[in-house]
């Protein structure tokens, strides 16, 4: 008998009147069960589960006691995380128990944005949605999802296809789209490549925040540790070329604080040294010239442009050429300048020159089981967020009469210059699937609650590849609070309610049934699946936390598929004379792009570099602070061509003069008591520039001016730059302007 069945049986028949007056029963009596119920009262049970806090899809274990989730740790069997879990993953408990969760479907009763809702039943909600879909022409519908790959995305694409609506748009960090495009051009793969850092001897990271919040911080943090300390007698080296001192820069062996927007030229200069000094082979040279037929610019010109000494560039080129296993990683903010595609292609292209493709410690194509191909073709078309934003504003395409948003918060995460909020006011019907009343869902007419990751059956093929195929599968770790559902279950229920002829396209009873069916279909191709019994294979996968391939990455990218875009200089929103500072937003290690902002644990957690807690801030260099008479903690107004906001100053000697850094993720208009109106959202300062050659937002291409508003005190764990006396130890992060930790 399963524990849950036992408990149900125990409960059944015990009527409430019977319990009246029995408050002391548990105090006075002990139950000795007839047979073992599965667990003892108070016993800890660890359930394998999947972290849903970011697209990395790490495997986790949830410690439950008496059915309640108490603690989250990593699942050592899961190859994406190997037992690790980040702060955001730990905080999933506070998503589960968050007092501001939406537990039942909600219908708007007041005006849009008034936050007035009434609870309704699922039957009523589904009936209203079916009515809406029936009354709106498919060409006037629009759909937004959260992650472009995976089973839920596959279901959403299938639903749009079945309805005859335009393909969904997916909200993800805009640089991911640029990175995919750059990867297609330079490596011939249409997804984000895997960088085999753990087996590398030399990692040149061009802007990639490997140890911050990038594709899989847990996996890459471990890989960097393995590279340095996992092979006795062989220590790898990490070189970080990035404008601001991120956690990755702070932990690098050599930090090159490059001028923002010049990263592609830096990569070309490294190529120039490798080519001119014949440090590379003919095969690599030929491949590289397919991507860049023109010779690289001269070292002197580039060095001045990038703000990096030519000797440093030469040294990096020599060192990487000498390393046995080496890799060049490119992405993050370098992909978010207007010339982001060139920057990223130039960085990834160095792997061609160095013949790193498919080599141990090099770069690999992502491997995947791709169960979602049974739901929609792998390369099926999606709508770009920029195109959808234009439709929402009424500037192009068919007007939107029904907008369906699945587990995404575009009004918080997209640039303020896109002006989505005013467009939302004109959409007559907005349906949002969300666990919280966030910046987007409070514009909704109907909110369908989602359960949280710990309460749901889930199957996730991580969007962030790790070089070997991974399919995380897990049953619910705890019973659900409220009536929220998995987004896949909601989509299935909606599709099946619309019309009987759609049942053929969506024949599965629920999301889990769909996953089981897809696994049965693919079982011959899954590891250990040949001639396996479907039921026991599935049961074992649930107990383990998924289906994983073993071994090292093996898929070699085919090579360049076209020429690089032109070597253009980056340009910025705002005239330099009026807006002299370059704004560098960055994803917060703690709260990511905003998802973690409603967790007190994460708000209270000091930022690893600045040690600031609870709010976001603006990082200013000491020289700029002196010029503008700023003290640490002062309130500062940041003004861009698109808007203004006030933040507190953190004076940071590791900020390049002329730039200011602001963490993303704060400044929600709603999202519960811990996040609402806490800090400011730097995306509101960003205009509508796109990365050239793509449809992605150029969020690192905005200039601002600064103006002191008044004094203030900032909550931080450590001392400020000003409080730190001469001779005091300098913690990581408070480093000189350029570090060389070897030296």
């Amino acid at each position: 008998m399963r524990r849950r069945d036992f408990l149900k049986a125990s409960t059944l028949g015990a009527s409430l009147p019977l319990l009246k007056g029995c408050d002391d029963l548990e105090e006075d009596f002990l139950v000795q069960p007839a047979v073992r119920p599965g667990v003892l009262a108070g016993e800890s049970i660890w359930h394998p589960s999947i972290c849903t806090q970011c697209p990395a899809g790490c495997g986790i274990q949830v410690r439950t006691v008496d059915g309640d989730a108490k603690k989250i740790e990593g699942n050592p069997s899961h190859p994406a995380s190997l037992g690790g879990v980040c702060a955001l993953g730990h905080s999933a408990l506070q998503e589960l128990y968050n007092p501001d969760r939406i537990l039942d479907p909600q219908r708007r009763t007041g005006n849009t944005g008034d936050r007035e809702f009434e609870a309704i039943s699922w039957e009523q909600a589904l009936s209203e949605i079916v009515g809406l879909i029936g009354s709106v022409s498919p060409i006037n519908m629009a759909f937004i999802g959260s992650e472009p790959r995976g089973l839920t995305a596959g279901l959403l694409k299938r639903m749009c296809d079945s309805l005859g609506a335009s393909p969904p748009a997916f909200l993800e960090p805009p640089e991911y789209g640029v990175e995919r495009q750059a990867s297609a051009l330079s490596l011939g793969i249409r997804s984000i490549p895997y960088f085999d850092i753990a087996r590398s001897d030399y990692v040149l990271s061009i802007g990639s925040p490997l140890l911050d919040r990038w594709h899989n911080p847990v996996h890459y943090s471990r890989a960097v540790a393995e590279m340095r300390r996992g092979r006795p007698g062989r220590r790898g080296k990490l070189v970080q070329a990035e404008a601001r001192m991120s956690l990755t820069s702070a932990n690098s062996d050599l930090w090159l604080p490059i001028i923002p927007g010049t990263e592609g030229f830096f990569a070309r200069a490294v190529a120039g040294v490798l080519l001119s000094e014949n440090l590379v082979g003919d095969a690599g040279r030929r491949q590289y010239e397919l991507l860049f037929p023109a010779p690289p610019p001269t070292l002197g010109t580039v060095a001045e442009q990038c703000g990096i000494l030519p000797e440093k560039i030469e040294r990096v080129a020599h060192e990487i050429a000498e390393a046995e296993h080496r890799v060049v990683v490119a992405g993050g903010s370098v992909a978010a300048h207007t010339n982001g595609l060139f920057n990223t292609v130039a960085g990834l292209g160095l792997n061609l020159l160095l013949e790193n493709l498919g080599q141990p410690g090099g770069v690999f194509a992502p491997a995947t089981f791709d169960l979602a191909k049974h739901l929609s073709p792998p390369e099926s078309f999606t709508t770009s967020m920029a195109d959808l934003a234009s439709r929402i504003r009424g500037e192009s395409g068919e007007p939107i009469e029904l907008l369906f948003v699945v587990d995404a918060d575009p009004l918080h995460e997209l640039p303020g210059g896109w002006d989505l909020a005013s467009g939302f006011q004109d959409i007559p019907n907005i349906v949002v699937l969300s666990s919280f009343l966030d910046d987007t869902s409070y514009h909704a007419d109907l909110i369908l609650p989602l359960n949280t990751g710990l309460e749901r059956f889930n199957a996730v093929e991580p969007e962030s590849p790790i070089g070997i195929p991974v399919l995380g599968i897990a049953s619910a770790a705890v019973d659900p609070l409220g009536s929220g559902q998995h987004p896949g279950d909601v989509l299935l229920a909606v599709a099946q309610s619309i019309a009987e002829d759609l049942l053929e396209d969506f024949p599965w009873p629920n999301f889990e049934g769909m996953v089981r069916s897809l696994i049965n279909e693919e079982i011959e191709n899954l590891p250990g699946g040949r001639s396996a019994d479907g039921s026991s294979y599935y049961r074992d996968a649930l107990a383990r936390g998924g289906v994983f391939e073993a071994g090292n990455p093996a898929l070699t990218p085919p090579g360049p598929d076209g020429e690089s875009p032109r070597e253009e200089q980056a340009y910025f929103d705002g005239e330099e004379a009026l807006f002299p500072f370059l704004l560098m937003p960055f994803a917060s290690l703690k709260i990511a792009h905003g998802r973690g902002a409603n967790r007190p644990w994460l708000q209270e957690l000091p930022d690893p570099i600045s040690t600031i807690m609870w709010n976001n801030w603006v990082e200013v260099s000491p020289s700029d602070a002196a010029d503008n008479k700023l003290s640490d903690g002062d309130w500062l107004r940041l003004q861009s061509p698109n808007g203004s906001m006030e933040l507190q100053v953190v004076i940071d000697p590791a900020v390049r003069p002329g730039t200011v850094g602001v963490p993303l993720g704060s400044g929600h208009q709603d999202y519960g008591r811990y996040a609402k109106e806490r800090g400011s959202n730097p995306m509101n300062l960003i205009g509508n520039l796109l990365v050239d050659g793509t449809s992605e937002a150029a969020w690192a291409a905005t200039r601002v001016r600064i103006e002191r508003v008044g004094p203030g005190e900032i909550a931080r764990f450590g001392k400020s730059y000003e409080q730190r006396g001469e001779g005091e130890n300098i913690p990581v992060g408070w480093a000189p302007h350029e570090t060389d930790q070897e030296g």
Partner: protein
Amino acid sequence: MKLRPKRSKRPSCTVRNIAGVSLALMAMGCSTDVPEDLAQPIAFSHIAHSEDDISCTRCHQGAETQDQAGLPPISSCASCHRRGVIPDHPEVLKFMEKLEERQPLIWRKVNVLPSSAMVHFRHKPHARAGVDCSTCHGDVSQMGLAQKEIDTANMGWCVSCHRENEASVDCLTCHY
């Protein structure tokens, strides 16, 4: 021994256990106004088991690893008694009958910490610190049914032991 009071929104395991107790009492023909002198369900003999070298933790498996010492399922008892250890003893027949009917045995607790005291007693840290079972429970190995020998609900008794053994006497160590 006390089950933890629960504060979560959804029905807790404890509440469900109460429901189970009620169900069992109903099945026994008892009302829920339990008389104070309700006898234990069987005349279990600790002394008989200790003479057979059965340690405390063989049955109370949670004593060293969990908050609560716990009781084994009746099926565990049956695993010995069904295989020829006094299978026809009247007390054995009583619980074998319960097992047959898949009904639990309901035991009256001997050592009770009132919930009003808000004490979270945890066996594991005490066992880890080397506190012998008999320190709090008396020499149960010489008892038939367990009897209360020490007033464990007396905070002064707890505190003096904590002081003697240099354990924490911070209020929040036990009261939370």
